[in-house]
């Protein structure tokens, strides 16, 4: 199994890239030229925290991508969800959408170890993901979530500021996506609440609440850390061989 997964991973490894040692302009640095991760939170013209920057999981750890509840949070799965999760773990994730070059979604990209770039304007936040070269939009222009939803891979996201915390509500995520690579399932009733806080220059804390009464007996919450990634750029990562999934066998 491991060998097959390794092969798959190699097939989609990005090319060696450019600008990977380009010093990020305008970021606070210590005397030795390194990024000062504990410098104050940057702010926009209107005084809100600015979440912009390039981020990754600390040490590129895949811990939360593999299991959102890796810290031991209780996940109150309904019996069908528990059975499906068990099956997905036993299958080594062979039916995971990403093995067929389909996008990750909100919670698994929050947990993803690979770099992501956040671009914040007054009206929206765009998140660019290195993996799968895809993106997600969060509207912060005051609009409400739509009522009549057509499910989409990234759902529909709106955010608003509560003090220095950006609270993002997402609904309409199509039920083909998995909450994490382990395979925590969800239904079309999923409502994700993300609370983003940038307590200093170098860190973002994402608090995720999963509310899906058709799959979980009550909402559950996890915390995921992001760390600022200086002096580099997203690589050109394209899922070029969606035929790999046919060769991904297990058990």
């Amino acid at each position: 199994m491991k060998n097959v997964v390794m092969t798959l991973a190699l097939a989609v490894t990005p090319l060696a890239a450019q600008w990977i040692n380009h010093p990020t302009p305008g970021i606070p640095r210590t005397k030795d030229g390194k990024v000062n991760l504990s410098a104050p939170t940057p702010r926009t013209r209107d005084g809100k925290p600015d979440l912009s920057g390039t981020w990754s999981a600390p040490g590129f750890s895949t811990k939360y991508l593999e299991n959102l509840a890796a810290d031991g949070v209780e996940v109150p799965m309904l019996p069908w969800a528990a059975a499906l999760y068990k099956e997905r773990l036993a299958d080594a994730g062979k039916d995971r959408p990403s093995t067929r070059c389909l996008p990750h979604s909100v919670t698994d990209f929050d947990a993803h170890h690979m770099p992501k770039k956040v671009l914040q304007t007054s009206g929206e936040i765009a998140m660019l993901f290195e993996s799968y070269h895809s993106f997600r939009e969060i509207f912060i222009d005051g609009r409400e979530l739509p009522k009549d939803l057509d499910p989409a891979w990234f759902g529909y996201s709106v955010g608003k500021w509560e003090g220095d915390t950006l609270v993002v509500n997402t609904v309409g995520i199509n039920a083909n996506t998995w909450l994490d690579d382990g395979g925590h399932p969800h239904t079309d009733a999923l409502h994700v609440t993300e609370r983003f806080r940038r307590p200093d220059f170098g860190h973002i804390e994402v608090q995720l609440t999963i509310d899906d009464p058709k799959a979980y007996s009550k909402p559950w919450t996890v915390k995921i850390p992001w760390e600022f990634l200086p002096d580099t750029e997203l690589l050109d990562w394209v899922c070029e061989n969606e035929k790999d999934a046919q060769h991904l066998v297990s058990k």
Partner: protein
Amino acid sequence: MKAAVLAILSLALTDPVRAQWLNYPTPGIPRTADGKPNLAAPTPRTADGKPDLTGVWNRISPKYDANITADLKPGDIPPWAQALVEKRKEDLGKDHMAAHCLPFGPEYSTAQRYVKIVQTPTLIVMLDEDLTYRQIFLDGRPLESDPQPAWMGYSVGHWDGDTLVVDSAGFNDKTWLDTQGHPHSEALHTTERYRRTDLGHLEMETTIQDPKVYAKPFTVAISSLLAPDTELLEAVCNENNKDLDHWVGRASDDEKSEVKVPRETLAKYAGTYVEQPKLWRTVARTIVITAEGDALFGDLDGRGKTRIRATSASNFVGIQGGVEFVVKDPKTAPTDLFVKHVSGNYRFARTK
């Protein structure tokens, strides 16, 4: 013919899902008294006084989307490249990036697609409905001299007065410049010049330099219209990419089934036909029919003359799902033709 219809069908299958916020009023844009966006309002500007290109844009590019070299002379394209284009046409475009769910690379800036531009002082991103993005750095960094080829290349921009100038290089050579299949090499360098002339209009000129393919640089000009009160729709290609199994046949299959039509009949078909009504399109489509001896040609929106072949005295294949001339009196020229498509027949009226 069948294959061509299947090819069109396949493209239709990758249409984006019906989405939300399709009629959500874009906040903060100037409106006329009746509440419609005032597309002629002045160009919006950022806090630092630069034109703000932010918005969802509908790129109007029926000609260059199909044939980026539409304005070149035959001698401007080397024989090997022309032969490659012919082969790609013969294969009904089955190796186009779209058929394999791969990024369009440089074609993102000239293809007839929606693009969302999000602008900050140091970075502009262009978002495509297929969920790929492009980054343009405005932080003063130069392009690297020997970049590792990448699908989206590398782009840097700067302001020349009110014009955003974007230089890009470092593309891999796996992408095509248009749907006909005009090739490029890794030496491709593009220079795009964007000007938002008012709220509703974005003008772009791009110069394509690729000395390994095209002897001299050439420039195409493409306009985009603001698409207010809507958002990008999500179109995930791999979701339904079973199309290739059905992508069979060759363009030349049409030759084998060709029916002989008298020259004098073909000559009557020649003329310029304009779509009536223009439907949802911003610019009505035009097809120019020319007859040369025993051969009939059609040129849809200036994409280039394409041989069309008769399956009956009035039905021809080779463009879209086919062209049918409406012959009421065989002695006179037809007043209309239909361009066929899986979504129906589209009427074009003769204007000359």
